[in-house]
């Protein structure tokens, strides 16, 4: 027989045997896959930001399928699109969660606050914090090495002049930055509440004035001027009660340090 024909025939035969074996195997050894998981998973954006509180989108999808999670509006990154898709797949009602946004509660950029040490090392806030609570004179403020910017799945955070800035349009409120920040200076707040005390320093005013031009000194002017009595001083730091706040902006105007924005 022609050697080419032999070669082709034998190769085809081996291929056919392998194919038959695989078909039989996939038929008789098939493991049923839960289809609802795939469907639910497809509704989620796959950013794996962890904003829902589960390890990645797979975790959230699994929890919804298993019935452990009753709310389908926890995906901040997917927003409305994900919610509507999930509502269709799971047959639950689409109740939108209030959109949230990350707020950096510090105004201490390189101009307004001092450095207490010259830090040379890995450019990471976590590493910087290990040395005497960071290099900033204020041990509560933003360190500006950008752990939050790295953690952000939407690239919504920029470090400008040693301070993290959140791009409100890009931010989905997933909270990845807040978890990455070793100073806990980033808060995840409802997007509708515009007025925030942008300082975390709870030391006495005398000390704050020495180290930062923009920090809250706990003078209490805002607490007295607030028409709704929504502001209280907690540990020398003005704290706004979001339930009472009406976004009137009085505190913004009276604050002598301009740290309520």
């Amino acid at each position, binding site marked *: 027989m022609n050697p080419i024909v032999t*070669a082709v025939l034998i*190769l085809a035969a*081996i291929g056919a045997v*392998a194919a038959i074996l*695989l078909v039989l195997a996939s038929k008789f*050894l098939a493991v049923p896959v839960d289809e609802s998981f795939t469907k639910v998973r497809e509704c989620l954006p796959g950013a794996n930001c962890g904003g829902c509180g589960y390890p990645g989108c797979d975790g959230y999808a699994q929890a919804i399928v298993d019935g452990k999670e009753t709310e389908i509006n926890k995906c901040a990154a997917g927003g409305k699109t994900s919610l509507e898709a999930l509502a269709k797949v799971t047959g639950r009602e689409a109740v939108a969660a209030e959109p949230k946004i990350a707020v950096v509660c510090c105004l201490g950029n390189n101009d307004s606050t001092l450095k207490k040490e010259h830090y040379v090392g890995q450019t990471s806030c976590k590493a910087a914090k290990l040395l005497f609570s960071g290099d900033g004179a204020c041990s509560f403020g933003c360190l500006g090495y950008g752990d939050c910017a790295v953690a952000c799945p939407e690239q919504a955070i920029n470090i400008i002049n040693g301070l993290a800035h959140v791009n409100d349009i890009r931010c989905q409120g997933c909270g990845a930055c807040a978890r990455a920040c070793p100073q806990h200076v980033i808060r995840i707040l409802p997007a509708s509440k515009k007025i925030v005390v942008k300082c975390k320093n709870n030391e006495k005013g005398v000390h704050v004035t020495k180290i930062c031009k923009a920090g809250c000194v706990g003078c209490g002017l805002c607490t007295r001027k607030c028409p709704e009595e929504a502001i209280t001083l907690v540990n020398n730091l003005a704290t706004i009660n979001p339930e009472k706040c009406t976004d009137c902006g009085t505190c913004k105007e009276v604050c002598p340090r301009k740290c309520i924005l």
Partner: protein
Amino acid sequence: MTGATKLLLIAFSMIFTENYVLVQFIAICPFLGVSKKLDSSVGMSGAVIFVMTLASAVTWLIYNFIMVPLHIEYLSTIIFILVIAALVQFVEIVLKKFLKSLYNSLGIYLPLITTNCAVLAVTLLNITNTYNFLESVIDGLTAGVGFGLAMILFCGVRKALERAKPPKCFSGLPITLVAAALTSMTFMGFTGIADALFK
């Protein structure tokens, strides 16, 4: 050379002196691609060891009992590719059914190495070196172990690289390749040891 010594020689040379990745430069793709994290390199190595051992056994049988009698030895490359691809798929189905835990730990790496050149190389070299069945299986097993050793070693090197700050033109893949070359040079130091030890 007695049988046992020859097996030892094969094992030693496959792991150290003839290491597929660091000396023969086979399977560089998974070596660079998967060695970023320790758990993924361990998973990949496990899958490679498993598939190499199985493929060595199966292809030896096919070569000696089908291809040699039919005088189609020249088709070995294409037939081995076919057989290995089918074998990996089959093993994946079987593992999924009966050994769910092993399936989960080998995970995505199993189908990834379907067409891995190291697996093909080990089966072809078994034939070139005229190994018998046992020698082929040991060859496959230890070649996989050598691959695993290279992966895990290099994973450590890359961990150190992450902390280093190379010049911008070197950052990323270039510095990784330089590091791979240096790691490979250390393995070149084993050359000749096997002959002195076992002959």
